[in-house]
């Protein structure tokens, strides 16, 4: 199926679709630029812990991000820089969290991809895969209680995460409750070093939708146009009362699991298949072929993204880092408990 998508189709596209494509492309570009900067900061020893990049997955992530509206709920995973930005994350927060700034929402208590702003519907993942899906589902249960039936929730997971009990329990729960939840599985072929063949035995992960009683969709994660079309449909179906949507996107992780990982285990021949295409390059070609952008405009966008990233880094680097003396060392929100701890 993917082979037929190698050549971009040249059909008439509506102005709305054009606008969305360009919007999504720019989030992809900003995410790629951001992550390249994060990688270089990590290599320079400016970031503690891990740096996890989404190279090769920006199209799915950006397309999902722009389908969400203010008031929706988003539970991104580790390779969702593009979606996070499109959902409204500010660039400076990305770097504040990575640096461990006191001014970030997590105040240096959590780093890298474990960030969010739950008050704004932007959930902060923990490292335990699959466990955020039920959290997003529960947020939708709350919205139903509050009479908000316009919002949807979306969350992403990898091929490896689909093997967890948490994934199964959460999708089943969402299906039973008929929640407007979009679960996007990004099959990037590897869970750390483990290939699909050691992860699951079904022919196609989207077939699981039938088992859960939810609607299933497949998309080519290397092709932004396909991502936009399918995710527009899936989010619209969820929004219009058709219950949970399981979307399975295929692509290849064009980077190691994290920056410390050279991915030497990866089958390099995959890079020369349709799966191995770089979604950003594919999108650039598409933009040029449709005369939506020429090389000069692309270069302008690239420069703009670079400038925004440099500015954000410069600002974030001026913020004070987490330090033990200003840390409260109190994990409780209840004032009575917190006061007792702080007195001690």
């Amino acid at each position, binding site marked *: 199926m993917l082979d037929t998508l190698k050549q971009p189709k040249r059909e008439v596209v509506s102005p709305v679709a054009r606008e969305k494509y360009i919007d999504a492309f720019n989030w992809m570009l900003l995410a790629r630029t951001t992550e390249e900067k994060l990688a270089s900061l990590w290599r320079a020893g400016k970031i503690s812990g891990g740096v996890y990049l989404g190279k090769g997955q920006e199209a799915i992530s950006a397309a999902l991000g722009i389908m969400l509206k203010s008031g929706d*709920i988003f539970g991104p995973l580790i390779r969702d820089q593009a979606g996070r930005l499109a959902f409204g994350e500010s660039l400076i927060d990305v770097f504040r969290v990575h640096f461990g700034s006191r001014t970030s*929402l*997590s105040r240096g*208590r*959590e780093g890298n991809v*474990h960030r*969010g*702003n*739950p*008050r704004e519907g932007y*959930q*902060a993942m*923990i490292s*335990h895969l699959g*466990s*955020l*899906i*039920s*959290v*997003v*589902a*529960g*947020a*939708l*249960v*709350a*919205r139903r*209680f*509050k009479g908000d039936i316009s919002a949807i929730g979306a969350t992403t997971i990898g091929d490896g995460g689909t093997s967890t*009990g*948490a994934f199964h*329990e*959460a999708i*089943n*729960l969402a299906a*039973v409750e008929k929640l407007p939840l979009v679960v996007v599985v990004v099959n990037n072929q590897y869970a750390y070093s483990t290939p699909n063949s050691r992860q699951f035995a079904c022919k196609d992960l989207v077939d699981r939708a039938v088992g859960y009683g939810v609607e299933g969709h497949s998309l080519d994660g290397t092709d932004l146009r396909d991502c936009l079309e399918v995710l527009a449909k899936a989010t619209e179906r969820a929004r219009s009362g058709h219950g949970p949507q399981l979307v399975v996107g295929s692509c290849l992780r064009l980077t190691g699991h994290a920056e410390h990982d050279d991915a030497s285990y990866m089958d390099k021949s995959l890079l020369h298949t349709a799966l191995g295409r770089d979604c950003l390059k594919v999108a650039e070609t598409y933009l040029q072929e449709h005369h939506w952008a020429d090389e000069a405009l692309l270069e302008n966008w690239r420069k703009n993204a670079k400038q925004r990233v440099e500015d954000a880094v410069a600002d974030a680097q001026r913020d004070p880092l987490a330090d033990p003396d200003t840390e409260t060392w109190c*994990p*409780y*929100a*209840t*004032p*009575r*408990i917190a006061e*007792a*701890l702080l007195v001690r």
Partner: protein
Amino acid sequence: MTITYLEAIREAQEKALRDDHRVYIYGQDVGAFGGAFKATKNLAKEFPGRILDAPISEDAMVGSAIGAAIEGMRPIVEMQFADFSVVAFNQIVNQAATLYWRTQVACPITIRLPSGGNPGSGPFHSQCLESLYSHFPGLVVMTPATVEDAYTMLLEAVEIDDPVIFCEHKYLYNRLKSDALPETNLSYDTARVVRFGRDLTIVAYSAMVHEALAAADQLHKENIEVEVVDLRCVKPLDLKTVMGSVARTARLLCVGESWPWGGVNAEVIASVATSGFHLLDAPPQRINSKDTPIPFHPNLWGVHKPSSQVIAAAARRLYEW
């Protein structure tokens, strides 16, 4: 009118649902059926749409409660048995307990754990897991021993902005009765001296408070006066009350139904020994359940958990030390 410990739990939930529109109940068989122990009896009828039957998915039950709490709800999750809560362990200790620390967004969920043994319940329907959950920063762990405490502490659990593990004891469900529900009570985080005595202190919680009191009655006949402290809430732990009692009696015996290794008893003794060593006239002692899985047959189960006789014998030895 009499009201049981179990009915007090039902009444507290009814009041919480009535007073606070953010409250809803989620758990297996809690709806029209009224719960495996009937702790939610008739609530589905009284509060349509707010008592939701859950699939057998403890992980997702708690995960969804966390998501709802983030959105401002006050969910009460009923685990059918405390033993099954470990299926949701990850959500409880990694997601719920850390949420406020990570994001400055509170996680006001209450997880009810029908705990402890009954004759014939066996290894997977009898566990006391308060020690396990107390280990994790960010959780509040309550262990009410009376009808009154079950009522007011459950109401407090719902009001508290942090995740609360509410360990309600199944052995007490229908055995404990009271005349009426209280209007006021001690705050959840305050231990209570339930019996005064000059000779030694027994610190207990949940069903073991009653075993300790029975032991104290027996020892009174032998002219040994035991002071009994009911911890009520094991995290946070009211060490001030414990220390005050030890300062009066100079002898400490801790009793808990959970397993011994790294437990509530161990924590109380370590704390007293660390900051109150000078108060002690004898080495502090503890009694827990035996360090094996919980046996099914009543002949075995009866000696697996601490009983008033075993507590009395240990107290006698401590008194004579």
